[in-house]
């Protein structure tokens, strides 16, 4: 949550939330037009659950997060097209969508892979709905991604407008909630749990005190709402009333914590395999860490069994402190190995492992203790710089530490995720380009 910004009443704020419809499914459709008008779902990592559903798939009753094995029958009966997630493709199309959107406003906040808030302050003399329809048209033309756009005087109202625009499919996927009358109409029918920032638990609390619709939440007593839902709730109420409390966040804040954890493609039993998987997770996390120029002071490593499976369950994690802080893949991977040796137990079927970097600080803030070798530290930094430079130029994993294993791309290691139905990386690999006649 951002800190509230003092706003001068003279300039009314206008926010537009642009959001890609069933984004992952839409990305798949860009390169496979035979999927148009067909039910499509994209699965989470490791082909577990449905994380993106086309409208047709939603109409069949497939819910967000439904595990594939539970919806097998629906999939079979209706010939639902099922895909593994292809993040190289989604990331590239997302970047294209964002740079297309950036042409329409001087200020925007990329909120997630498929959502962006655009500031339309000072565009008041235009027909905003018309402008939004133009944005939609250009994004669809340039990237192939269909979008919905909600406009409102606050971020929360823009989010509401976007939701309604998408659901009702009226006004060509655009809804402007800037005028009072439309707000009344929409908020009256919107369940309170559909308001941005109201989770299931907050909704339960609100229902308990008789607040069921967004309109009731808007008209509720401010202090009472703050008692119930903390300052976050107070801001939501104010935003519903049209008072902007959440400003655009144009600069992404550095992460305070970096997590890299994945389920294995098949059960893993040995320490060596766990170490190899964890070394790869540490590598990813370290890359992210160095990208924000941070150093990590505390690392946790965890391993666990499959919760959904019968048999002995085991979960354990260990934490290690890096005194001076480091961003070296070599140091952190060695440390992770030591933790793993301590928490590993023989004869268990492991399903998942992960690393968590916490206590992240800027690398400039490094503090050496009496016994730290400063020369070693700057040596580490140099090695990582060279490694990052080589990998940036020659492709990821060109240079990696030995602990990551030495399998060629064709023979995936046991711990590697399953992605049996992944489409080619049409926009990021020469060998994967779309073939046309």
């Amino acid at each position, binding site marked *: 949550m951002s800190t509230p910004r003092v706003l001068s009443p003279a300039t009314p704020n206008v926010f537009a939330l642009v959001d890609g419809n069933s984004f992952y499914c839409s990305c798949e459709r860009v390169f496979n*037009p*035979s999927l148009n008008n067909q039910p499509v779902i994209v699965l989470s990592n490791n082909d577990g659950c449905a994380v993106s559903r086309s409208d047709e798939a939603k109409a069949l009753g497939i819910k967000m997060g439904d595990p594939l094995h539970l919806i097998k029958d629906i999939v079979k009966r209706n010939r639902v097209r099922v895909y593994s997630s292809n993040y190289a493709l989604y990331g590239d199309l997302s970047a294209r969508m964002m740079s297309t959107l950036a042409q329409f406003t001087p200020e925007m906040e990329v909120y997630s892979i498929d959502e962006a808030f655009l500031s339309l302050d000072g565009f008041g003399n235009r027909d905003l709905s018309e402008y939004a329809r133009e944005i939609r048209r*250009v994004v669809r*033309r*340039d990237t192939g991604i269909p979008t919905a756009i909600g406009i409102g005087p606050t971020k929360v109202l823009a989010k509401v407008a976007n939701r309604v625009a998408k659901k009702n499919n009226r006004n060509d996927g655009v809804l402007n909630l800037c005028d009072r009358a439309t707000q009344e109409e929409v908020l009256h029918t919107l369940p309170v749990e559909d308001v941005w920032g109201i989770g299931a638990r907050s909704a339960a609390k609100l229902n308990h005190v008789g607040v069921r619709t967004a309109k009731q939440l808007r008209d509720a007593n401010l202090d009472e709402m703050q008692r119930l839902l903390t300052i976050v709730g107070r801001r939501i109420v104010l935003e519903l009333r049209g008072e902007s409390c959440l400003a655009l966040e144009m600069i992404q804040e550095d992460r305070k914590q970096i997590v890299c954890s994945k389920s294995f493609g098949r059960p893993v039993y040995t320490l060596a395999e766990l170490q190899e998987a964890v070394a790869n997770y540490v590598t990813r996390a370290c890359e992210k860490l160095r990208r924000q120029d941070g150093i990590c002071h505390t690392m946790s490593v965890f391993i666990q069994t499959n919760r959904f499976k019968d048999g002995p369950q085991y979960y354990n994690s260990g934490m290690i402190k890096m005194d001076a802080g480091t961003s070296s893949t070599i140091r952190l991977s060695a440390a992770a190995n030591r933790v793993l040796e301590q928490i590993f137990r023989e004869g268990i079927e492991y399903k998942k492992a992960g690393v968590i970097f916490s206590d992240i600080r800027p690398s400039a803030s490094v503090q050496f203790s009496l016994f730290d070798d400063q020369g070693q530290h700057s040596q580490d930094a140099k090695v990582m*710089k060279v490694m990052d430079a080589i990998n940036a130029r020659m492709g990821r994993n060109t240079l990696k530490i030995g602990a990551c294993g030495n399998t060629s791309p064709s023979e995936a290691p046991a711990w590697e995720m399953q992605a049996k139905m992944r489409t080619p990386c*049409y926009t990021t690999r020469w060998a994967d380009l779309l*073939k*046309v*006649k």
Partner: protein
Amino acid sequence: MNLERHFNLAQTKATQSLDVLHAANIDGPVPADEYKENSVRRAFQRAQSACFLKEARIRLKQDKVPSSTKKKSAIKPSVRLPFFGCAVSCGFPSPADDYIEKKLDLNEYLIDKPSATFFVRVAGDSMIGVGIHPDDLLIVDRSKEPRNKSIVLAIVNGEFTVKRYICRNSKITLKAENPAYQDIVIVEGMQFEVVGVCTNVIHSLK
């Protein structure tokens, strides 16, 4: 005598240059920004010319130099030169340095709007008449509206196809550039969409 003065001057410059080298941390990582790189390169070249002159001086000395000059050159600051793992060109700075322009970038030449541009690989010879061969790379700009006779990437009934776009009396025909292929006439009820305009074809001669 002229040479002697030149040498002293060069030596002062050389020490200065080495300061620059140290400031730029030349024995550490490669200097990041171009400015640093340029100034380091120049400094190093200056240092090198100084060394060259030093050698000349030694030769001068061997040729029995007058004592007055000997005295002057007695001050010999110890100079530690950095070790370069790579070859560095000797001599004076290139007179072309002031005329350096950026490198030619093919992306700039071939692509107007990167966010809307996609590459596809050609399969088949239906467009061979305009020089689009199997395995060629086509550059497609989605943001461009097709005009009559544009080469377009289109979707017809769920399949991609590259053809010449002919629009006459609001009737659209997709024409192949190979007599072996039939034209596709777009009629009502067909699923049809122009994806983008093909702006360039890259044909490898390998």
